[in-house]
C-alpha cells in the first residue's frame, strides 16, 4: 500500500431501507491502482454498497471517492429493447462532459469507436445493442465506462453470465486501468475469478466480515462467517456455495486453484 491518499475511503457506512438495515458499520480504504473484489452471499448488500458509493442511496457514515467515478451497471439493468447501437451506447459515456444542449461530434464518435476497439467490439459498432450477447453487451458497457475516464471505476457483477472471451478481454482492460493508477472495485459472485484477478477482497454480509488478500480471506473460518453453512471443503481446499440455484453451472463450485 503506497503512502498516497486513498482512492476510496469508507467510514462507518450504514444503509437502511425503511427499518431494515442492509449495510451496517462498514469501513475500509482502497489505494489507487488496486483491483478490489466485493464478495458475499445474495442479499449481502454488495449492490447497495455500490449504490452508496455512487451516491444513489442515502447513507450514514462518511464516503470519499476520487473523482470522476465511472460505472458499469449490470447488463440486466439496461433496457435492451431501446433502439441504439453499440457505438451510441459508448457515446453516452461522454454526455456529462458534453453538457446540455450540445450534440456529440464526429470526434466523439471516433473516440467511442476506439474504445470499442479496446474491448474488441469495434466490428460490431453499428449493431443494435439488443442484438448483442450478454458478454458483448457487458463489454460495450465497459467501453462506455472507459469514456467517462474515471479515477475510480465501479462495476456491478461484470463477469456473471459472460462468455470466456468477453471475460478475458474485460479483465485485460481492467488490469490496464489499474496499471494507469486508476482504481477498480467490482462486485462478484465468482470466488475463483476474484481470487485470480483481484489484489484485495472485501467479504460482505451486511457487515464487513473481512478485508484482505486471497490468502487472508480464503480460509474456512472466514468464509463461514460470511456464507454460513454454504461452505464446501474438498481436498483441503475451501470453496463457498453461494445460492446454488441462481448461477450458471460454470460458476458453481469454483475454488482456489
Amino acid at each position: 500500500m503506497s503512502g498516497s491518499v486513498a482512492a476510496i475511503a469508507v467510514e462507518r457506512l450504514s444503509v437502511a431501507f425503511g427499518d431494515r438495515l442492509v449495510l451496517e458499520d462498514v469501513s475500509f480504504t482502497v489505494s489507487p491502482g488496486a483491483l478490489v473484489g466485493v464478495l458475499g452471499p445474495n442479499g449481502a448488500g454488495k449492490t447497495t454498497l455500490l449504490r452508496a458509493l455512487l451516491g444513489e442511496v442515502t447513507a450514514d457514515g462518511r464516503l470519499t471517492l476520487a473523482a470522476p467515478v465511472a460505472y458499469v451497471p449490470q447488463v440486466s439493468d439496461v433496457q435492451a429493447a431501446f433502439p441504439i447501437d453499440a457505438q451510441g451506447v459508448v457515446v453516452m459515456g461522454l454526455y456529462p462532459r458534453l453538457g446540455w444542449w450540445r450534440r456529440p461530434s464526429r470526434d466523439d464518435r471516433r473516440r467511442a469507436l476506439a474504445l470499442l476497439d479496446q474491448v474488441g467490439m469495434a466490428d460490431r459498432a453499428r449493431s443494435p445493442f439488443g442484438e448483442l450477447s450478454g458478454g458483448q453487451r457487458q463489454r460495450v458497457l465497459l467501453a462506455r465506462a472507459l469514456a467517462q475516464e474515471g479515477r475510480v471505476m465501479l462495476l456491478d457483477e461484470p463477469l456473471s453470465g459472460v462468455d470466456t472471451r468477453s471475460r478475458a478481454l474485460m479483465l485485460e482492460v481492467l488490469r490496464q486501468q489499474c496499471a494507469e493508477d486508476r482504481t477498480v472495485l467490482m462486485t462478484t459472485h465468482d470466488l475463483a475469478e476474484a481470487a485470480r484477478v483481484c489484489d484485495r477482497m472485501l467479504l460482505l454480509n451486511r457487515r464487513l466480515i473481512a478485508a484482505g488478500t486471497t490468502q487472508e480471506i480464503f480460509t474456512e473460518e472466514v468464509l463461514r462467517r460470511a456464507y454460513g453453512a454454504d461452505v464446501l471443503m474438498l481436498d483441503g481446499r475451501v470453496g463457498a456455495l453461494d445460492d446454488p440455484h441462481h448461477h450458471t453451472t460454470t460458476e458453481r463450485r469454483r475454488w482456489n486453484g
Partner: protein
Amino acid sequence: MEWLTDPWSSGIMRRAFAEAIMMGAVTGALGCFVLLRGLAFLGESVAHTLILGVVVAFLLGGPVALGAVGAAALTVALSSALTADQRFSVDVSMGVLLPTFFGLGVTLIALSEGYRSKLEGTLFGAIFAVTNLDLVLAAAAAVLAGATLLFAGKELALVTFDRSMAQAMGYRMRLLDLLLFGVVTVAAVVALRAVGNVLLTAMLLGPALSARLLTRTFWPMVASAAALGTLAGVLGLYWSWSSDVGGGPAIVLVVAGLFAVVAGGRAGATLVR
C-alpha cells in the same frame, strides 16, 4: 387537384390542420419516450391525471393547461417522496399515484355539477372547434417540446435506456422525471383538444410503435414518429372532409392504418426472405 386545395379554403379546416400537424408531431416525438420507457401506462394514465388538474383549475377559474401541468408536477413530487424510501421504484410509485389521482379527479367531477358539459376536451375531442387561442397553446407546446428535446434530449434518452447509469453520472433523476412528465402532459393537453381523452393514448403510442419498426436508432425513430403523427393528422382531416367520420376518430384510424401498413410490410419482408 381541387380536392387537395379545397379544404384549405375553409378557416375551420385550416385551423384543424394546424392543430393536427402540431399535435401529431409533438405526440409522435414524445410518445417515443413514453413507449420506450416501458411506461405505456403512463400515456393512458397521464390523461387520467390530467382530469384532476383540469378539474381543479376549472373550479378555481384558472387556465386548464396550468392545472394539468400542476397535477403532473405533484405526481412527480409524490413519486419522488415515495421512492426516497428506497423500497419503491419509480414505476411502482407511479403505478400507485396515477390511479389515485384519477380517482380523485373522478370524485371531483362527481361533486362538481357543471363540469361535464361545460368543459372542453370531451371524450373524442373537438378538433373543428379549435380557436386561434388553442393554436397558440399548441404552438407553445410544440416549442416547449422542441426546446426540451434540444436541451435535454440525449439525457432523457439516457435515462430511458439506463436509469442507473444516469443516476451514477450525477443527473438529478427528479428533475429529469419532472421534465419528461411535464412535457408529455403538455402534449397530452393539446391532444386532448384534438382527439379527446379516449384516443389520446393512440396518438402517443401509435406513431412511436410504427417508427420503432422502421428505424434502428433513437433519433431517427423520434423524427419518424413525429412525421407519422403529422401525416396521420393531415390524412385524417382530408378523410373527414370527404366523409362522415369525425375529425379525431379519423386521425386515430389513420394512425392505426399506418401501423398496420408498417407492421404488415415488415412481416411480408420477413416472409419473402
